[in-house]
């Protein structure tokens, strides 16, 4: 044990992100009332990864994400958290989150999934893409040796939720696909204890692991970064098509799905793109999948661009509504009317939001209290 970490309990608003080498170690000693104690560790895990095959001439091929990294002894995949050790593929981050917090579920954002509740949110180091605008690059674009990790088994995660009455676990912040085994085992254990699980992801995953995981998930939020392949190639360093396929697969599975589209000035913000996006969603997922247009702020490798003008977000919102999408939101603009949920039938505000706070809740079960129209989601 390196030292003791005291995590501020329920209600804390600052994410405990352990990344001392990039200078981001937070005030982890703040607010120790009702605190739980966790252990930092320098050790990496040694758990065999799932979804890989051994190659004839040595090495392995990872089959978790469409990247299909070929990895020889002592090397790692693109994600930086899965390593070939003598032709056995190992996840180095099982049970080793570097970032923890209890967040409002609205922060994910999931607006149609148990509004007003909280989610115990966690992430390990690593990511299988490299978005130039990443807001969490200090943990997603580094190797697990570069973050301060907390020893937290799946059982310990579930214990935190039950002891603090947190109904949901959110795998988030970095890219949960790269800590698949940890996420999977925690979702299974969570369900046995009536704890729900949601995955907040870029959605760059192969069909089989996604199918296996969806059985145990309650909701998925996918960051659809763009609707054009060249954006994925140039800005994300991934591919669009597998993400679209995964969206369709998730929708068909019945697991609750919401989509975020980060609008980046000059890169994915044309009216034709918004139209294309809306039409694709309508044709492939339906009109009742919530779509969040999120405001970009200069980050990481895209510091040369301005924040997204609110007018651009409103244009996107208008286009998608005109194309028939029923639940379109604007995010990262606190107090904007498009943070709230409106009943498509009577037009009244059924969930009034301000930031992550719910000011008014006008649903009865899953129905509009004014006109009894059914609102899709998990309420």
């Amino acid at each position, binding site marked *: 044990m390196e030292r003791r970490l005291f995590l501020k309990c329920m209600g804390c608003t600052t994410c405990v992100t352990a990344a001392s080498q990039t*200078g981001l170690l937070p005030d982890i000693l703040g607010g120790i009332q009702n605190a739980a104690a966790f252990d930092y560790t320098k050790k990496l895990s040694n758990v065999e990864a799932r979804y890989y095959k051994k190659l004839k001439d040595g090495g392995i091929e990872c089959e978790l994400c469409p990247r299909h990294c*070929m990895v020889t002894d002592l090397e790692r995949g693109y994600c930086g958290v899965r390593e070939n050790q003598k032709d056995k593929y190992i996840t180095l981050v099982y049970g080793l989150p570097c970032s923890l917090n209890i967040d409002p579920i609205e922060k994910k954002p999931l607006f149609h999934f148990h509004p007003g509740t909280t989610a115990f949110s966690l992430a390990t180091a690593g990511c299988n893409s490299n978005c130039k605008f990443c807001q969490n690059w200090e943990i997603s674009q580094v190797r697990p*040796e570069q973050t301060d990790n907390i020893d937290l088994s799946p059982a310990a995660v579930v214990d935190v939720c039950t002891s603090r009455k947190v109904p949901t676990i959110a795998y988030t912040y970095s890219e949960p696909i790269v800590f698949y085994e940890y996420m999977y085992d925690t979702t299974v254990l969570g369900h046995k204890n009536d704890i729900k699980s949601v995955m907040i992801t870029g959605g760059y995953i192969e069909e089989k692991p996604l199918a296996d995981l969806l059985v145990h998930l309650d909701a998925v939020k996918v960051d659809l970064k763009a609707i054009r392949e060249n954006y994925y190639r140039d800005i994300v360093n991934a591919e669009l098509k597998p993400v679209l396929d995964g969206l369709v697969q998730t929708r068909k599975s019945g697991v609750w799905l919401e989509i975020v589209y980060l609008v980046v000035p000059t890169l994915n913000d044309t009216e034709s793109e918004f139209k294309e996006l809306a039409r694709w969603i309508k044709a492939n997922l339906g009109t009742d999948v919530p779509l969040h247009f999120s405001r970009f702020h200069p980050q990481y490798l895209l510091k040369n661009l301005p924040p997204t003008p609110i007018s651009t977000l409103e244009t996107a919102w208008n286009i998608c509504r005109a194309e028939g999408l029923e639940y379109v939101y604007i995010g990262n603009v606190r107090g904007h009317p498009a943070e709230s949920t409106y009943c498509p039938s009577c037009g009244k505000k059924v969930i009034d939001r301000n930031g992550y706070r719910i000011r008014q809740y006008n649903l009865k079960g899953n129905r509009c209290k004014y006109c009894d129209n059914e609102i899709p989601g998990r309420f």
Partner: protein
Amino acid sequence: MSTVIVVKSTGGNPGKKPDSEKYKTLLNEGLRLLTEDKNPSGCLARLFPGGRVGMKTNCLAGRLNSTTPTLVDALSELLKESGIEENNIIVWERSNRELSSAGYKLNASSFGRRILGTDSNGVGYSRAFYSSDGVNSLISRILTDMIDYNINLPVLKDHSIAGLSGGLKNMYGAVHNPNKYHDNNCDPYAANISNLEPIRKKNRLTIIDAIMVQYNGGPGFDSRYMAYYGGILISEDPVAVDRVGLEILEYFRRINSLPPLEKVGRSVKYLKTAALLKLGMDKLDKIKIKVIDVGREGKSRPGSLL
């Protein structure tokens, strides 16, 4: 025209790594030939005129296939003799774990030669990103802040993706996100990492340990594909020294009935990219290769590359 010196040990015990004294002899002979200065201390004093000198090792593969401490010890002695303060010599790698696994005794103190990984307390990576065409990385603060010059000390190895792991590839260990740069046989990434401003500016000398050559199955250790070459390669040109190393690696593949790297999809394309970035020469006809054999008694005579 660039110069690459190849110093081969003859008359020793093939298959056995030289001891520190032997390495010192090889280094002395090689540095004299490189700088055409009879006094090896003078050579190093000219290459490293005071200040702090780093040695970037390659310790990925543990004791069996990493930059050996005996070579590092020999070079440290020569640096001290040339006037570099012992505490201003920093032997470094990505992590303390890798250094320890390769047989190094860590020392981050103010006394004696320092041996430390970037993950040592208080070290870490640069705050600022450095960029070069597709590469955007933080760089080890050992390189950016703690040394004035760097000696790149790789071992000559095959690499399952890059084809060749030599000096340019070794600098992957200086950046925070090396796993992002393995697509397309590490091209253009291996070249662009060495083109990042602090690396390009501080890398003064590359010494490749080619006593043993992992000509297939790298970058880890695979005894089936390990051959004795018995030499070290020295150059101020980081591209030329890799290019000559590639000749040696391909030679061992050839005599062991393995296809050339190009035929197995591991063409070392990044050398050409590095040349285009003007990091050095990638064409053999633009590289002067001087080979000497150093016998057991320490006498040298002209030798042949292969």
